[in-house]
């Protein structure tokens, strides 16, 4: 036993449907002498008996088997009957809150209807592919059996859906539990609803962002993420045979109730329509659109409402436009130095009086070459032949053959290039070696007694 005081503060979310409002936290103080063996469910039951009989919560089996008491305990979804007080950080108050993404009925009791609507959408039942009279023989080392593993142990407590951040953002997203259920049957080769099930899972399985929240909170150690990844790989494998469903009605911005209420006529293998719209607009008379799997089939509507396929086309167009613009900017930035002419500029070489007359001198030349977004420091040299005061010839120092550095050799009185034995005379004409033409002559001028050359 630790020497910590055994009194803990417990904060419980309260919402009274008779009063309405947003709900609030009530704070209780409870003496918990044995935190290692006291579950959160025990805490709630004691609060209900000793302090506040009006607290509502669900529980049934008390042994982590029924999934009734899923709730958010100190910021993590868990079963109240499986979480001991000692599992929580000792510095934190015990804070109990209902699950996310489900309508709250009272206090910690949520309406699980949307959860089970999504669950039903995944066709969570086994439909044999062909009639079979005798029991199936399933070997424990069968690959599919090993793949499925314990994923069939799901108790539908809703913890994973509550912990998933993506359920907020995609109305049609089935959530980890339904997809895990779909996975257990998709991986089963005896099942006859493979295509219908995979078609329904197709839209949802790419909403996963690989956060592993569902895996971390699952009280049965099932990995929803693993199931979703498996379905994604299946979808890749069966890419050709699958047709996507029309957009989920809740994602359709149209306020047309006849469209928002589009439902499959019957949930069966033949229809691929989505019936998880239990909680958006009140379903009007279901429009007799023979739930066609063709995503481009747009139900006839008054002009002004944008149909899902058109919306997705617009989205794609905007996206493609953005990509094209960005690509253009990046491409231009990358290729600009190689496109068109780089602007020429006049660069000072040296004062004319410093250049010895009657000699050929190699003078350093440093300048900045600018082009589009690029700026580049150029360090080169220029060969200056100063015949008489004011009479100058300027040669670039790169060999026309392969661009190697050319230097003046006073002994043999010729320009020499190191690369393949190129040589040039005093006028820059080729006298030996592979260079195709003479040395490049640079335009020059004299301003304020300073020699300047024009370079790019």
């Amino acid at each position: 036993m630790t020497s910590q005081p055994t009194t803990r503060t417990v904060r419980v979310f309260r919402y009274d449907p008779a009063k309405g409002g947003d709900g609030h936290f009530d704070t209780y103080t409870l003496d918990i002498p044995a935190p290692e063996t006291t579950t959160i469910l025990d805490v709630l039951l004691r609060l209900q008996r000793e302090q506040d009989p009006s607290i509502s919560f669900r529980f049934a089996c008390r042994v982590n088997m029924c999934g009734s008491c899923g709730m958010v305990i100190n910021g993590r979804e868990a079963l109240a009957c499986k979480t001991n007080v000692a599992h929580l950080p000792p510095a934190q108050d015990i804070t109990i809150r209902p699950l996310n993404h489900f309508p709250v009925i009272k206090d910690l009791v949520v309406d699980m209807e949307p959860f089970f609507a999504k669950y039903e959408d995944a066709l969570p039942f086994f439909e044999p592919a062909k009639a079979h009279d005798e029991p199936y023989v399933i070997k424990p080392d069968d690959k599919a059996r090993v793949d499925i593993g314990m994923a069939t142990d799901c108790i539908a407590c809703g913890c994973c859906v509550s912990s998933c951040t993506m359920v907020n953002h995609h109305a049609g997203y089935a959530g980890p539990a339904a997809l895990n259920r779909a996975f257990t049957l998709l991986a089963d080769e005896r099942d006859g609803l493979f295509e219908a099930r995979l078609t329904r899972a197709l839209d949802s399985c790419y909403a996963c962002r690989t956060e592993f929240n569902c895996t971390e909170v699952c009280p049965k150690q099932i990995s929803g993420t693993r199931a979703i990844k498996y379905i994604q790989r299946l979808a890749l494998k069966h890419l050709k045979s699958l047709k996507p469903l029309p957009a989920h009605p809740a994602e359709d911005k149209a306020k047309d109730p006849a469209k928002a209420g589009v439902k499959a006529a019957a949930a069966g293998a033949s229809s691929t329509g989505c019936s998880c719209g239990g909680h958006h607009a009140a379903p009007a008379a279901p429009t007799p659109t023979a739930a066609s799997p063709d995503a481009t089939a747009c139900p006839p509507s008054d002009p002004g409402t944008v149909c899902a396929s058109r919306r997705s086309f617009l989205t794609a167009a905007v996206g493609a436009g953005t990509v094209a613009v960005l690509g253009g900017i990046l491409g231009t930035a990358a290729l600009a130095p190689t496109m068109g002419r780089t602007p020429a500029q006049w660069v000072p070489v040296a004062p004319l009086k410093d250049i010895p007359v009657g000699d050929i001198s190699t003078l350093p030349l440093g300048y900045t070459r600018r082009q589009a977004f690029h700026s580049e420091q150029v360090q080169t040299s220029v060969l200056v032949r100063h015949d008489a005061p004011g009479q100058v010839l300027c040669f670039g120092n790169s060999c026309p053959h392969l661009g190697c550095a050319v230097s003046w050799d006073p002994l043999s009185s010729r320009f020499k290039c190191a690369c393949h034995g190129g040589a040039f005379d005093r006028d820059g004409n080729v006298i030996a070696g592979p260079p195709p033409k003479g040395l490049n002559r640079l335009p020059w001028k004299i301003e304020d007694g300073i020699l300047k050359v024009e370079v790019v």
Partner: protein
Amino acid sequence: MEQSKFEYRAPLQWGDLDPYRRERTHVGMWAWLIQRFSAVLIVIFLTLHLFFTYKPFLQFMLLVAVALHAALGLRVILLDFNLADIKRQRNLVYWLPGIGLALVLLIWGIIY
């Protein structure tokens, strides 16, 4: 289903009225957040990089953002195609960005 005569409270959203949610965030959540965030940073730094070339600090930040984004993207690819043991997913979050940042420091040490 018959209509209840009581008002349900609108569903609580993730992190809504949830004081301990952020400090008890799971590892994979951080992986996703860092990848999202580094994607935005890459766009910003890459744009700046085009206008202000070869500014060491900017280059370093861009390199770090790209390394983090790439490492975490590699994590998702490994998990997507079943190339890593999914039971060890937390280790991927520690090791891949760690290796990425080590490579950044190595490259930085070689170049500058």
